[in-house]
């Protein structure tokens, strides 16, 4: 079965205005904060990782028809069923349950994606690189608009959890992470709407080839 993300929107022709919102207006229904908190609280249980969550969301067939918290809700329901947390049989025990007295400390600590590197970085700041061109048949974090494009390594962030394997539960397989900058004309051609702009992505080493 082919993998299709409905969330890879950069550069697509999407009609509609960008509807602005005042600062401090976070929710548009009483159920939305509950969904936000459920998703945050499910993190420590170990049911899924952030990349599995993103994969579950971006493959929802009706992704584009849903509001963002509806997307979070539908993906949480989907994963909870898939992982046997919601089902007739008793679920696997949660790794950890977020409690009221430790919730603030847990979010203040966060979930670092940094991992020790297992090999030296292949690229240095200033190197010219080309992104790989193929769309893999699984979750990935190389946007379609930046595939097969020529860019320059601008920053190195150390080794981070690799979403492509982590989403498939194949392990964290840490990879070097780089900020790679592209000229707007490289991405959009000579008719680029803002020809003098520069666009960067954060790209894992397997997304890059020397150029």
């Amino acid at each position: 079965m082919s993998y299709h993300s409905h969330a890879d929107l950069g550069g697509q022709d999407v009609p509609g205005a960008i509807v602005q919102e005042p600062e401090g207006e976070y929710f548009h229904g009483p159920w939305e904060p509950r969904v936000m908190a459920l998703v945050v609280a499910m993190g420590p249980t170990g049911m899924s990782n952030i990349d599995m969550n993103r994969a579950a969301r971006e493959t929802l067939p009706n992704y584009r028809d849903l509001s963002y918290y509806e997307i979070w809700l539908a993906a949480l329901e989907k994963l909870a069923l898939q992982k046997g947390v919601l089902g007739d049989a008793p679920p696997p025990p949660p790794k950890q349950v977020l409690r009221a007295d430790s919730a603030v400390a847990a979010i203040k600590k966060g979930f670092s994606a940094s991992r020790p590197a297992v090999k030296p970085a292949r690229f240095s700041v200033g190197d010219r690189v080309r992104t790989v061109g193929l769309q893999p048949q699984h979750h990935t974090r190389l946007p379609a608009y930046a595939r097969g494009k020529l860019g320059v390594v601008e920053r190195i962030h150390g080794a981070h959890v690799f979403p492509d394997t982590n989403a498939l539960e194949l392990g964290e397989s840490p990879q070097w992470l780089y900020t790679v900058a592209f000229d707007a004309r490289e991405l959009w051609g000579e008719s680029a709407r803002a020809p003098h702009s520069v666009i960067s992505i954060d790209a894992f080493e397997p997304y890059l080839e020397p150029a």
Partner: protein
Amino acid sequence: MSEHEHQHEQHEQRASSALELRVRALEARLTEKGYIDPAALDVLIDEYQTKIGPRNGAQVVARAWAHPEFRRWLLEDATAAIASLGFTGRQGEHMVAVENTPAVHNMVVCTLCSCYPWSVLGLPPTWYKSAPYRARAVQDPRGVLKEFGVELPQTTQIRIWDSTAEVRYLVIPQRPAGTEHLSERELANLVTRDSMIGTGLPTPAA
């Protein structure tokens, strides 16, 4: 209210109460299975509704404007500099601060989902997660800025940061003119959420 508007409103209310029931059912099931402690949800909601928000980021920017040493630290190691003000954790584990100048204007997006620096800006506004913003920010940044009422000189380079991994970006806007006499607290009041995403500019000095 027209008949059509009335029907639309009724439809919205039905949809909202259906969602309300669905979320309540899910929470009850996850609680029953021992995965969720509802009291922890209340704490999280309070934290993100009243404590963690763009005023955190505004303090960071104001300090950078007021203290050259802090600004240097922020540009070199944003995670550590921001942590020194007590802002750490979820969706802010790997921070990078990028500074606007007359030559470069920075703007942040996540075209693949909704990555946003929660520890300094709180929960993202709906438009940041919306398809139009994610689609256009990388391709037509000047058009997007115009929708936000921002027009920059053609000589200013627009620099877009697409947050495609776990690094989160905070824009340090340019300090408004005529603010030399202001305290750090007063400076923070000029820093808007949108100016730290790059879709807006700080409030000019009164």
